[in-house]
Structure formats: C-alpha cells, structure tokens
C-alpha cells in the first residue's frame, strides 16, 4: 500500500489537470447541445454530407439532433482522446520514470520485491484511471440533467464502460512497454494513443480496413456502433483484454529481472 499511496501522491497534479480538463470540455459540449438542437435542420445535413470525414466520425450513422447522437460524437471524442492520452501517459511512465528521474535506486534498495513494485504501480495507475472516469461520468450526467434532457442510461453507460475498457487496455500495453524503458517515455505513450485513435478513423472510412477495428481499442469504443447496436462487441473486448494481459505479464517478467541503471 505504501507505494500505491506514494504513486497517487506523486501523480495527483497530473491527475487533477487531466480530469478537470476533460470534464470541463465534456460539460461545455453538453451545454452546447440545446443550441445545436434548435439549429439542427441545417447543421445536421451539413455534418451528414461531408463524405469520408462524416464516415470517419460515424456521423452518417448517428443523429446529431438527439442528445445521444450529439453526446456520442462530441463528448465521445473528448473522452476517447483525452482518456486515452491520460491512461497511456500514466502507464508508460509508471515504471520507467523511476529510472529516468534516477529514483529507482532509492526505491529498490528498500525491502520491497520487484513484483510488489510492479503490482502496486499497476494498481495505482488503474485506480487513477477508474477515479477519473467515474468523476467525468458523474459530471456528464449532472450536466445532462442541468440542460433538461433525459439521460439515455443504457447507451451512456455502455459508452462510458467501453471508454474505460479502452483506457485500461492501452494502459496495460503501455505498462508493459514501461518496464523495458530506461529513459524518456511520454512520446511512446502519446504516439501509441494517437495511432490507436487514427486506426479506428481509417477503419471507419475504408471498407477494406474494417479489420483494423480488431486491432485498435478504439474499435469497440465507436459510439456509432454502440448506439446503433445497443451492445459492446465482445470479440474486440476479449482481444483487447488479451493484449492488456500480455502487456502486464511482460511488465512483471521484464522488471523482475531488469538491471537498474545508476
């Protein structure tokens, strides 16, 4: 528990900044909806007729005039990208930052096993991701209530669940990468998150690239699919869970036998 507490303390500013930023953007988007709804006729057709761009964001399959359609596109992208960045950054630096900041020697000359360090850091990263998603979820629900719309419980729960799973998958993979790094890491985490995001956009635009949805965790987060189908794609989620599991296993194997640079 000591390391978890320490990790949460060390990461509290980054956590606060990311959570407040994403939540604020989400709330602002929700507050824009009433106006959007009034001018829907013109805008809806515009958004639905931007060709590939429309396909990429699933706007051909979602109705911008309904709250869930609007929420899925606007807020989904904010939470999708923001959450993915935060999860990837937190996880990819979890183990490597000790060596980068040269604190590994301090930590690892205390009577704690490497496996315990990995476990506690993993739990700290997961706790931060869970806490952030919960806070954002509650704030989103509140803001929807404030603008007087009915909460589409099923869709919104499924969407937020999918985003949480996506972040956990990315975190698991990045955590594995973290164990192999000695120095900088932020770039790798951000790069991976951005790549995953764009793979899904490509998959949405090109029929031949549909298989990409099975590779990127954004595949099962596609709001248009979730709202349209009313369920999550379990095959994609199982693949994602496997990828995260491999990442975490790699972290344990690598970190427990790693030479710590001085």
């Amino acid at each position, binding site marked *: 528990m*000591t*390391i978890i507490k*320490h990790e949460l303390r*060390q990461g509290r500013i980054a956590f606060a900044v990311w959570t407040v930023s994403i939540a604020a953007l989400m709330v602002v988007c929700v507050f824009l909806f009433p106006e959007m709804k009034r001018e829907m006729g013109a805008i809806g057709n515009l958004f639905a007729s931007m060709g590939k761009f429309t396909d990429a964001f699933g706007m051909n399959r979602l109705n911008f005039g309904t709250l869930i359609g609007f929420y899925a596109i606007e807020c989904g992208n904010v939470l999708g990208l923001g959450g993915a960045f935060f999860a990837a950054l937190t996880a990819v630096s979890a183990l490597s930052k000790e060596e980068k*900041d*040269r*604190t*590994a*020697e*301090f*930590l*690892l*000359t*205390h*009577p*704690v*096993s490497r496996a315990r360090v990995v476990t506690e850091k993993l739990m700290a990263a997961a706790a931060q991701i869970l806490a952030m998603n919960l806070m954002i979820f509650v704030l989103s629900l509140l803001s929807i209530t404030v603008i007087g719309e009915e909460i589409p419980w099923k869709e919104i729960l499924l969407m937020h669940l999918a985003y949480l799973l996506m972040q956990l998958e990315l975190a698991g993979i990045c955590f594995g990468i973290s164990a192999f790094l000695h120095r900088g890491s932020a770039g790798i985490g951000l790069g991976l998150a951005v790549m995953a995001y764009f793979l899904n956009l490509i998959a949405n635009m090109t029929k031949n690239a549909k298989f990409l949805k099975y590779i990127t965790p954004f595949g099962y987060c596609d709001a248009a699919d979730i709202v349209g189908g009313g369920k999550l794609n379990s095959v994609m989620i199982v693949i994602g869970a496997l990828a995260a599991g491999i990442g975490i296993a790699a972290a344990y194997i690598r970190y427990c*036998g790693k*030479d*710590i640079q*001085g």
Partner: protein
Amino acid sequence: MEAVRISDLTKYYGKIRGIERVSLTVAKGEFFGFIGPNGAGKSTTIRTLLGLIRPTSGEAQILGLDIEKDKEKILARVGYLPSEAVFYSGMRVRDVLKFSADLRKKDCRKTADQLCERLQLDTSRKVEELSFGNRKKTAIVCALQHEPELLLLDEPTSGLDPLMQKEFFEILRERNREGTTIFLSSHILSEIQRNCTRAAIIREGQIIACGSVEELSRTSARRISIHGQAEIVDLEGVRDLQVSAEGLNFLYSGDMNRLLAVLARGNIRDLSISEPDLEEVFMHYYDARVERSCVPCSHGKE
C-alpha cells in the same frame, strides 16, 4: 558467519567489463574499506550486492543470505548510501524519511530526529531545493535510521564539508562499536586509513590486494628524507625523487647497504627513514608495472 562473502563475482554490461571474479569476505563488526579510482568497479560491486543489477556469474552472501534468492530479507537488514542520492521531487525531507521508513514497515522517527539534529538537516526543506551536501545528509539518515546490521557506503563523504565529515565518521564509529558492520567504498585513502581495519583494493574490475590496512601499507619500500647532500644517481630502486635546496626526498626499494654506503660518502645533516603512507602504497599498487597479484583475502578477526 561473515557479514559479506563474495565469491568469483563477475558482472559484464554487455561486452563492457564491470567486475571480474571479485572475491572477498568481511567479518561481522568489521570496518572494511574498499579502495579504487572511479570506474574501477566499486559501485558495480555494491549495486550487485543490493540486487539492483544481476551478476553475470559468481555468487555472494550478505549476513549469510543469498543476494539473489533472499534479496528482500537482505535489504531489510542493510543500509545503503549511494554516491549520488536522488529523491522524488516535490517531497520534503521529512516525507522522504517517512516514505523510507514506511517501505521498511518501521517507525524510525526517534533515530531519524537524532540523526537530523547531529547532521544539522532541516527536514522541512523540499528535496529539489537541497544542495548536494544536504541531499547527502538526507541519504545518510535514510541509510541509518532503521539501524541496519550492515552499512554499504558508496563514496559517502563527497559533498560533505569537513565538519560534517567528522560528525559522520563519528556516527559511523559509534555504530561500529555497537556492532554494525561497515563497508566503506572510497577513493580517498586517508579516509580508509583513519577508519578501517581492513581493506581491499580494486583496479579495472579486479581485486589486486586485500588485507589489513596495516598490512597493505607495509612494503619493503621506504620513504627516505635527507637534509644535506648525497650522490644517489647510481643508486637503483629510487622512485618519486624530489630535490630541494634543503636536500632530497625519495621512495627507496633497493638494497639498504648500498644506500647506506652512498649516504656515508655524502654530507648528511639529518636523515629520516619511514614507512610510506597508504597513498604511496596505493600508487605502487596502481603502477602499471606492478604485476597483478592477489594477496589472499582472509579477514583479520579469524
């Protein structure tokens, strides 16, 4: 049982040598010195003992426990002072000390307070604002506050002013009297000579000598200091010759009779013949011309 027993420990970083077949033992309660210049392998040895890096081959026991299998048990009983201490930025000194104690699941506040007072360390300071010396002090408290049975100190005095160095060695001697084994790595010979009973000398990853500090200082060479004049050009075995208006000063390892004969022909006002200090012996060990020979390493308390 020994506090430290290292047998044939070798560490290669890829193809780069760290240490090669290092063997030595340190008895419980000893104040042991580990001498060598930068890059000789002192830190590699200590970091291997602590499990930060894995040995390529060979083995070692600390307090009778295997360094690979019983790593956590060893770390609970050992205090380590790194040559360059780095802490988590944003934390205050007292948070670092608390975190270190918590990781050891021990309440060390009393000892920590005493140490901070003796070392004049302000615990309310943030670690990133600390000078090198104050960071060192924080590391010293971390290494000592849990009252370990063995202290592994890597270049402990760098960054400390002379007064603090004195206080630090005072604390170490007290701990040593109470039974703590101390393993002191340093390139400052006077430090070793003043404090340690036994020492090992490491060069290019290999132990080249090991024994009591007295033994290591003992060599056939003598420091000869003459006030007056003598004709020593033909004398064999003269090294480190310094000529001044007063006279001559050199290290002599040749035949004593020949030296006396040469001096008898000269005009000598004053003469001193003394054992060279460890510094000179050290240079002797490090002289590339001296063949590497390992004095068998047995500890003095047997």
